[in-house]
């Protein structure tokens, strides 16, 4: 009985990948989505709100690109909310306001530093007072909208059941370094695939912060302003719109390019903010989970599987490691069977998710296929290889060890076995250590190869685990702004 319980603990480690397969499977069925989602082109009057704090390097290009949108000029207004910037942001915005009169407006907050949500709300109060808008588009200061992106998002608002639409944010830094390529692949999975799946389920977890097109009535129904009590204001808006009875949809062909972090530490800060926000949202909407009768499909089991498979991923991984190590101490043979069963399912899920990811966005895959393959890390790939080919793996490994002058003993075998059993948890600790390595003056160069060894996935899990700790400690909510240098290349 204890063995069965421990095996169940171990197989919890497969839940995130099963949820991943579920989403990728649904993504392939996206061609059967509700036809009412695409209704032909309409052009509601859109007020674009751009929060900007020290964005001099990126804001001119963002505005130029918005001015080139395939959208009627008389139905578009762009409000840049300058959050008391201390660089040349105000001058750059004013220059663009002069270049595009009637299109670009500069709103200045003299007292800034209250966070992105407060900055957006400053802009929303202004556009509500004007009353001109039919929809609001909230974007980041660094994102580059492709010409047809807003038009493609706006067409969904022709359906009165749709309250908001979002686009496909893609990593656009050029030249792309290792981290940019990992993020590019991650966005295939987290956006192109997951959001297609969520379109089919009739529920979206989050409007991408860089591209949120919200119908006026839905914004009002969601409280008229952006939530300032959490670090995930975009997710709160998304939930509120859906709980108010409107659909939120993802438009995969509305491409929006963004500049993402180039290093482990910068990624850590950004993702810790997102992960803490997700923990806060989970708590804030605790009356919604597992209640399928709630509006907006947020309470459905399928959505809970998607949401909690990400949120609880560290728990699942620790559970798997703990179960395997306990089994190793009680029944080694059974432990080996369970271990190989877990990793065999991981192999199949990994192949399905990776190949499907590549097939969803072939263009991005050409750039980041190595990072897609290395997403779980080379150590995990070796464990997968052992699972598929245990015989050759052991004999070749033993030969290699002998060549290195190490005699494979039973103790060494036990140590390697325990390492493999504990790896799902150890990988998170190793990912945390890479962040420290990157901060070290002489060792920083090692952080890139180490990410390939340990894995980008474990890095994200480590961030989520840290988010739990921060929330339990009621740590201060900080807006660690991701520095943007204007690295988005010439993209279409």
């Amino acid at each position, binding site marked *: 009985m204890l063995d069965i319980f421990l095996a169940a603990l171990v197989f919890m480690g497969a839940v995130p990948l099963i949820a991943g397969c579920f989403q*990728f*499977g649904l*993504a*392939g*069925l*996206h*061609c059967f989505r509700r036809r009412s989602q*695409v209704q*032909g*082109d309409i052009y509601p009057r859109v007020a674009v709100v751009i929060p900007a704090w020290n964005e001099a390097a990126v804001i001119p290009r963002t505005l130029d690109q918005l*001015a*080139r*949108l*395939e*959208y*009627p*000029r008389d139905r578009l207004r762009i409000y840049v909310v300058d959050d008391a910037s201390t660089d040349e942001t105000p001058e750059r915005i004013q220059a663009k306001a002069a*270049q*595009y*009169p*009637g*299109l670009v407006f500069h709103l200045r907050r003299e007292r800034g530093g209250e966070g992105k949500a407060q900055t957006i709300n400053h802009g929303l109060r202004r556009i509500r007072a004007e009353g001109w808008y039919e929809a609001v588009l909230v974007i980041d200061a660094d994102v580059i909208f492709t*010409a*047809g992106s807003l*038009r493609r998002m706006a067409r969904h608002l022709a359906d009165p059941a749709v309250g908001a639409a979002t686009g496909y944010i893609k990593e656009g830094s050029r030249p792309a370094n290792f981290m940019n390529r990992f993020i590019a692949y991650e966005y295939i999975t987290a956006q192109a695939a997951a959001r297609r799946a969520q379109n089919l389920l009739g529920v979206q977890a989050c409007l991408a912060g860089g591209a949120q097109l919200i119908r006026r009535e839905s914004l009002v129904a969601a409280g008229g302003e952006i939530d300032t009590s959490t670090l995930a204001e975009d997710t709160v808006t998304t939930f509120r719109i859906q709980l108010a009875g409107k659909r939120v949809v993802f438009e995969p*062909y509305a491409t929006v390019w963004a500049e993402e972090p180039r290093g482990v530490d910068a990624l850590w800060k950004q993702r810790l903010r997102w992960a803490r926000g997700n923990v806060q949202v989970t708590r804030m909407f605790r009356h919604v989970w597992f209640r399928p009768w709630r509006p907006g499909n947020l309470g459905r089991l399928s959505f809970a599987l998607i949401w909690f498979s990400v949120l609880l991923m560290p728990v699942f991984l620790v559970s798997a490691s703990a179960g395997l190590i306990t089994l190793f101490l009680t029944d080694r043979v059974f432990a080996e069977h369970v271990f190989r069963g877990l990793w065999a399912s991981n192999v*199949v899920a990994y*192949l*399905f998710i990776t*190949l*499907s990811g590549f*097939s*969803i966005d072939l263009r991005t895959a050409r750039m980041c296929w190595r990072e897609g393959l290395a997403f779980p890390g080379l150590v995990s790939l070796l464990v997968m290889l052992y699972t*598929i080919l245990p015989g050759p793996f052991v004999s070749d490994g033993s030969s290699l060890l002998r060549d290195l002058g190490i005699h494979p003993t039973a103790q060494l075998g036990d140590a390697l076995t325990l390492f493999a059993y504990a790896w799902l948890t150890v990988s998170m600790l190793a990912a945390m250590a890479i962040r420290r390595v990157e901060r070290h003056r002489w060792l920083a160069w090692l952080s890139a190869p180490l990410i390939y060894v340990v894995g980008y996935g474990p890095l994200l899990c480590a961030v989520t685990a840290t988010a739990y700790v921060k929330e339990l400690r009621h740590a201060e909510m900080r807006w660690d702004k991701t520095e943007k240098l204007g690295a988005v290349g010439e993209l279409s």
Partner: protein
Amino acid sequence: MSAPADLPRLPSEPELAAEAADEERAERWLLVRQVAIVLALTALVLSRVLLG
């Protein structure tokens, strides 16, 4: 404001129709590729199970 010649041209009805057709075709191809991946993986798993 920029000169009118700089204003973005809105796509015509036929262009929009062609764009919608392209998007639908891309989504159908996505399904085809997914099915191919599922079949290939199923064959791989079955061969592994049946052939040991």
